[in-house]
C-alpha cells in the first residue's frame, strides 16, 4: 500500500472526476481497490456521496471506512445511449447502470454498473457484490451478481 498518492497524481488518475477535499479519500480508496464510504465516528452513520460533515449529527469526525460492497440492486436502468467509456458500446448492447443499497445501512446507496452478467439477470432485488473493473487505467468499483445468489 505505502504512502497515499498525492493530490496532483489523484487528479491525473481520475481525469473525469471533480476531485475535491471532500471526496479525495473515496478515489484514493479506488486506487487500492477498496470502497471507502464516509462514516461518522460520533454517531456511526454512513453517508454518501462524501460530505465534509456528518449530515445526521453535524459532527466533523468523518472517517472514510471500507465497506463490504455487498448489497441489493435498488434501481436499475439500461442505457441505449450515453457518455463514452472504454468497453461500453451502446450499439452492441444496452449498458446497465444500477444503484445498489449497501448492506451496511438502510438507504445507503452506491451507483455503478454491473460487469459480466447477462442483462436479463440484472433486476431490482438482485443481491450483488463488488467487482473491480478497469476504467482508463484506474480501478473502478462495479458490481457482479452475488455467488449463489445470497
Amino acid at each position, binding site marked *: 500500500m505505502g504512502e497515499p498518492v498525492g493530490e496532483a497524481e489523484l487528479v491525473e488518475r481520475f481525469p473525469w472526476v471533480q476531485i475535491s477535499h471532500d471526496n479525495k479519500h473515496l478515489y484514493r480508496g479506488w486506487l487500492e481497490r477498496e470502497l471507502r464510504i464516509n462514516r461518522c465516528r460520533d454517531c456511526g452513520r454512513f453517508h454518501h456521496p462524501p460530505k465534509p460533515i456528518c449530515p445526521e449529527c453535524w459532527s466533523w469526525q468523518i472517517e472514510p471506512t471500507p465497506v463490504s460492497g455487498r448489497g441489493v440492486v435498488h434501481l436499475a436502468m439500461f*442505457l441505449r*445511449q*450515453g457518455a463514452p467509456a472504454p468497453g461500453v458500446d451502446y450499439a452492441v448492447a444496452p449498458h446497465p447502470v444500477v444503484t445498489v443499497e449497501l448492506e451496511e445501512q438502510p438507504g445507503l446507496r452506491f451507483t455503478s*454498473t454491473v460487469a459480466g452478467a447477462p442483462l436479463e439477470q440484472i433486476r*431490482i432485488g438482485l443481491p450483488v457484490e463488488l467487482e473491480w473493473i478497469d476504467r482508463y487505467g484506474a480501478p473502478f468499483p462495479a458490481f457482479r451478481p452475488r455467488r449463489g445468489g445470497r
Partner: protein
Amino acid sequence: MPAPQSARRYPIRDQIAIVGIGSTEFSRDAGGRSPASLACEAAIQAIHDAGMAKGDIDGVVGVAEPGAPRANQMTALLELPSVTHHSAPMPVAMFGLIDAMTAIWSGQCDSVLLYFAFTRLPWNSRSAARDPLRRYLMLGSGTAKPPMPESIDPAAAYTAWASRYVHEFGARREDFGRVALNMRANAMQNPKAVMKTPLTMEAYLAARMVRDPLCMLDMDVPIDGADAFVLTTTERAKRTTRSPVVVHAASAGVVGRNDEDQLPSLARHGQHVVVESLKARGEFWLDDVDVFFPYDGFSIITLGWIENVGYCKPGGAGRFLQEHWDAKSGRVLIGGRVPMNPHGGSLSEGASRGSGHLREAVTQLRGDAGPRQVANARTALIGCGGFFFNSQGALLRRL
C-alpha cells in the same frame, strides 16, 4: 408530517398578480436567431401586454438557462432605465416566479420582467451539435468534467426511479404512454407547440428506447423559444386590469437527502414538501381546481405529481389516467372536466422547464385560450419540477 412553519403566516397570498405574458413560437430550429433575440421578442410582448413601458419595469428576473441573456444583459438589451432588483434563479420556472413575487412584496421593486429563453444544446440535439454558433455551449468546453455512463445526473436519475416505480407498483409502459398521448393531443390544439403530429399508443410503444424503462417519448423535446411575464402588486393590477390573475400560493420543496440516488423513496421527496406547503398556505385544493399543470420533463414526474397532489393513491396514476381518459378527445379530463397541461406540456409543446405551464395557466385563467379554453376556468394548480432539487408548485386564481 408537520405543516410548514409558514402555514400560519402567509402574507403574500393573492398579493402578486401576473399582468403580462409574451412568448415566441417553440421550434426545433429558430433559424438564425439567438436566445437573446427570442428573449427580447417575448419580453417586449409581455411588457406591452401589461400595458407598461420601459420605465415601469424596475425588476428583472432571468432564469439561468444555458445561452440565455443574464438579467443585466437583458436590462441592456431593452435599455430599461433604472432597475433595483435583478437576479438569475436556477431552472425550473417557479424559482423565478417566487423570486419575482418576493422581490415585489418586500418592496425591492414594483414590477418585474420575468423571462425564460431556451436554446437547443449540442448534447441534446443533433442539429444543434452541427451549429458552429452553439459550439460554445458544448459540455466539457469549460471546467466541467465529461460525464461517465454511470453518472446519475438528473436525466438518468428519473429513469432510475422510474425503474423503482415499475418494480414497486407493477406499472406498465402504457401507463407512461398515456402521459405522452395526453400531451400530444393537447399540443395539437396549440399553434405554438413544436409537436403537432398525432400520437397513438402503438407508436409510443414502438418508439426508440433511450434508457430502459423510458423511451424517447417519455422525455421532453428540446426547443428554441422564449417566454416572458410581467408581475406587479395585485393592488396596482386591480387599477389597470379587469380581472387579474394572482398567485394564490407558491412553494419550492426539497428534502434533506436529495442526492439523486440517495433519495429516501418515491414516498418522500420534494414533491411531497411542495404539496404539504401549498395545502397549508392555500385556501382551495383539488375539488376547486379547474386546470391542472403537472410537470412533464419526464413522464415519470407527471405520474408522481398526479399521485402526490392526491388525485389517487401512490402507484395509482396509471389506472387514474385510464379511468379519466376522454376517448373522444384522446386525452385526460379529470372528472370529465379538468384537463392536464392543455397546451401540450414539455413533452409536446416543448421543453420550457415549466414556463409554458405557467403561461398556459395565465392564458386559461384570463379566458384567452381559444379552442382549448376550459369553460369558466378560475383556478389552476401547477406542480413544477421533479423529485430531487427542483420540486415546486403554485396555485393561481383569477380575482
